[in-house]
């Protein structure tokens, strides 16, 4: 494990080099929050509650969603993996006793620590404007279970990005696949609107898809959109299922991909 600890520390250092890029990204995500505030604020002028939630609760949901994306979301890991395959940089990992998935995951964890910390800065600055709207439930069980769900979300997010990176063994360019997937994830992951606003039957189908567990699930636990602890238990079981499936797919793609991989030169 020591080698992955070192990979994590190197990842931490290299991500700190790009702290300004991440800080700017965090700053511009506040504009997205402004869009949410204006759009949903206007929607609430025509209804006292939407889906059984007040404006404050909906705004809190989007804020938690934003913070979660910076803590557990895969930013450009797919492109980084793709670049390493295309440029032959993975050759060095094939010759060393190091697991490429664990190496990349260590760097992913380091990157999310940096981006998660940096998004808190603009958030703290915006807090005087936002704090009167925020509304979080007070159940103590939500914090530990939400953190467990967050860990599962991070694994799912990274695994999906890793799968897309692996596609480079078959396709020269993966950007189209990634952006197409982002559109699907933005809807079924609850980034565009809380999933419980969907018609009941679509919502129930969404609960069985991996996207639900990318960010919506922990956000719904923290913000009270999932009411009962029993529902959280069921959700964690489905989330674990998807983590296992995606880890399996990762390994399959890696093995199949390596069969097609050709390394030239020294």
């Amino acid at each position, binding site marked *: 494990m020591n080698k992955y600890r070192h990979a994590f520390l190197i990842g931490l250092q290299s991500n700190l080099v790009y702290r300004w*890029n991440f800080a700017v*990204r965090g700053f*511009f995500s506040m*504009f*997205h929050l*402004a*869009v949410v505030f*204006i*759009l*949903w*604020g*206007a*929607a*609430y*002028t*025509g*209804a006292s509650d*939407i*889906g059984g939630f007040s404006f404050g609760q909906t705004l809190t949901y989007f804020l938690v969603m934003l913070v979660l994306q910076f803590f557990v979301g895969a930013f450009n890991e797919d492109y980084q993996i793709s670049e390493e395959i295309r440029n032959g940089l993975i050759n060095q990992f094939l010759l060393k006793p190091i697991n490429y998935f664990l190496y990349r995951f260590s760097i992913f964890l380091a990157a999310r620590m940096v981006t998660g910390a940096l998004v808190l800065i603009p958030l703290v600055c915006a807090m005087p404007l936002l704090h009167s709207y925020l509304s979080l439930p007070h159940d103590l069980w939500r914090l530990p279970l939400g953190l467990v769900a967050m860990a599962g979300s991070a694994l799912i997010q990274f695994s999906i990005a890793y799968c897309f990176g692996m596609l480079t063994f078959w396709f020269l*360019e993966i950007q*189209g*696949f990634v*952006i*197409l997937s982002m*559109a*699907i994830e*933005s*809807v079924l992951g609850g980034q*565009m*609107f809380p999933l419980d*606003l*969907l*018609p009941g039957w679509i919502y129930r189908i969404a609960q069985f898809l991996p996207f639900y567990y990318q960010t919506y699930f922990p956000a719904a636990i923290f913000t009270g959109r999932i009411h009962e602890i029993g529902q959280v238990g069921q959700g964690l079981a489905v989330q674990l299922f998807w983590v296992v499936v995606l880890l399996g797919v990762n390994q399959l793609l890696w093995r199949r991909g390596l069969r097609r991989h050709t390394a030239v030169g020294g």
Partner: protein
Amino acid sequence: MTRHLQIWLASARYSVVRTMMFRFDFFLWAMVELCWMSVNVLLISVIYEHTGSIAGWTKYEMLLLVGTSLLVQRFLMGFFWSSLFEMGRNIRSGYFDFFLAQPGNILFMASTRKLDPDGLMNSFVAMGVVAYAAHKLGLHPSAFDLALYALMIFSGLVIHYSMLLISISLAFWMTSAQGVEGIYFTLSEFSRLPREAFRGIASLVFVWLLPVVVVSNAPAHTLLHGFQPRWAFALLGAALLWFGAAVLVFHRGLRRYASASS
């Protein structure tokens, strides 16, 4: 002027031929854009399942606004996005020299090198969204209103182009700033919101200082309520102002361009 038109036609022909060579890519990117457009339409549908109006706008009025906003953005994607995105990368890498050596206006050559037929294909889908919303609203715009709508879409395209060009031109000053084009996408999110939803400082910034809201609201208002001089002149004035500012920023940046090697 004729020579530039010939150059543009040659670039367009080259882009179409290239697209025909990579048909799977064309299909994939057309799907990508279609999916993102659907996401925006779905958002509106979901919200209106739970509320009757957004800032006084009904569901189909809002759909008309979103369709208009998407139409402007599809034109930008189709005509300019690839060229401007590559411009940023070329400035950073030094490959921008290639455009400096070409016999034509530098900004024109760099902005029109590539055309994206997939983006242009989806502009028909956006037009379909607008037409569907207009049909549901029972609108029967006159030929004059339609011509004015088209002119306003063109003005909106000029404003979006100028905003993207200013974002990309930042690469002349900040060569390490990758992803600056993200600024444009963040700002364009505001163009799908009705003007009446903005209050206080948000109204000042996004309606008056940055004309992202006017770009979509002005043409949508023309279809909904007919010719309104206030909206038309605000949009035309903003288009002229922003295009002038973008050209100025680009040329100021160009003076700083120092290539990357011999």
